[in-house]
């Protein structure tokens, strides 16, 4: 069933440039539809001994909105991204060091958080840090009629009764992170999960295309 729905399904156009900033160890700028995010990754670096962890790398995520003062929702985003990245990065290979991920929002036209997660993943790929797996975030919205819309546009998000976002790993397509707004039934959630899981393949293919586009020069 799900397969049929996705046969000619497309995500919003994605555009990406790696190594956008030459001073960072890894950086990526990603546009998904109209939403644009810039991420820089630095690490592993020396950090204060108080924040060092003997077992693994300490991850620091800084989200910076476009303008104005930092808000609580920025902290929430930092938290979600940190937890997602902690499972993805092989932190145990870099004990007592710090990895800093800095995120700059450039445009927000809906789906900022999934775009940020995908962009962070691309920046990590560019930085050459060892990772267990890559992650892909896909969002979906439940409209008033009860239809599920995968990768909704800004207008669809504004009118939706609920939005759900899922982050999958690339190995088993297991759920890494999930967050939602609004109310919905359990069955809807399960269906959304399955459909987003299928759609995550498109994001993984996009990553592979990006890496393929520059692999001829890294040899």
């Amino acid at each position: 069933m799900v397969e049929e729905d996705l046969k000619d399904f497309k995500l919003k156009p994605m555009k990406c440039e790696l190594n956008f900033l030459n001073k960072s160890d890894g950086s990526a700028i990603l546009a998904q539809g109209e939403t644009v995010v810039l991420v820089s990754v630095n690490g592993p670096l020396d950090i204060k001994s108080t924040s060092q962890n003997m077992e693994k790398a300490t991850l620091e995520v800084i989200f910076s909105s476009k303008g104005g003062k930092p808000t609580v929702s920025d902290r929430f985003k930092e938290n979600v991204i940190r937890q997602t990245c902690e499972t993805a990065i092989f932190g145990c290979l870099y004990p007592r060091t710090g990895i800093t991920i800095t995120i700059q929002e450039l445009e927000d036209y809906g789906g900022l958080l999934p775009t940020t997660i995908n962009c962070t993943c691309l920046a990590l790929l560019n930085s050459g840090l060892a990772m267990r797996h890559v992650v892909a975030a896909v969002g979906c919205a439940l409209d008033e009629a009860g239809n599920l819309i995968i990768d909704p546009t800004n207008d669809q998000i504004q009118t939706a009764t609920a939005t759900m976002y899922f982050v999958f790993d690339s190995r088993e397509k297991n759920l890494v992170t999930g967050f939602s707004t609004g109310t919905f039934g359990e069955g809807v959630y399960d269906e959304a999960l399955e459909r987003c899981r299928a759609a995550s393949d498109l994001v993984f293919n996009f990553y592979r295309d990006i890496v393929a586009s520059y692999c001829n020069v890294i040899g």
Partner: protein
Amino acid sequence: MKETIVSNSEKAFVQKLITSGHRLDGRTYKETRNHQISFGSDYGSCIASLGETKVMAQVSCEVVQPKQIRPNEGILYINVEVGPMAAPQFEANRQSDLTVYLNRLLEKCYKDSKCIDLESLCIVVEEKVWSIRVDVKILNHDGNLIECASIATLASLAHFKRPDVTRAGDKVIIHTMTEKDPIPTVLYHYPVCLTFAIFGSDILISDPSYIEEAVCMSVVDEDNVGGGLLVVGINQYKEPCLLDLTGAAIHSVNIVHKAILSASERGKLIIDIVKKSIISDDTLRQKRARINYKDIITNEHRQSLIRKELSIRLKNFNTNELKQESEEEMDQDDDDDVKIIEPSKYDIVATLPKTAEINAKTGKSAWIEISSDSEVE
């Protein structure tokens, strides 16, 4: 993470290079790196780049109560952030000397020079005025932050439009952008900050790169003490509105004079670029084109991670036009560092015969044989 220190070789090399009339990236003393300004979808949002230095500025506004001493004036607030995105040595959410310095210079240049008509930002005297906030975010630090930040600030201020307001009795209605056309900010003049690095006692370098900044701030030896950074703020009428010197004292007044003259030329060019890009952005917007930051992502860069400009470049490398430049030979001033040993004609040290990947995991404890014919010292 500490800043990586500049090695003695780099210092000496750059110093020698500049005294002999050249620069590392092949520019002339007066040449600047490429300027680029791109706007976001919102009014007052822009990314300015100067070579590889990139700064984003975003202007936002809100209605606040005015200050007691200036009841009929709006408020301009500038906030500079330098995070780890700029370069790994910076810490997040912390005021460093650099942020304070940048903030102060930008305030001097845009607030104290009174380039913005603050009175036009007043809605109700003593009650409601517009507070304009400029958030300047350093994305990439490759030298000359202040110039890039000031271009970004100027472009975003000139690009910004605030919502229209109407007063109905006591009530103040703020219209959305769709209801009424927003109002642009009034700028009396367009000031911009320009940086000069001073080498020796009389060499002025426009738009110093990261390494040039680092070298000119550090004293190499006793007879070269006059290094410093001179920031000149100047507007399109060639009126200076800011002067700031960091580093050693200047020996002669002439150099400041020279800097201001050179700044007035360069400033005019930069302000023209800013004005032109705002006009072209405006015409695009009138044609209902959707301007978005995604336009700065280009496929050709993604393809190969190509750096647009090399940081070490010969003067004539990759230029298509046939310029007839009589390059003076520089042999005379570095005879001394070669005479120690004359490297044999084909002396190249390729110490690792294999690539890193193989060596790394072979796990052999024996060191890799170093071919004795390759000498470094």
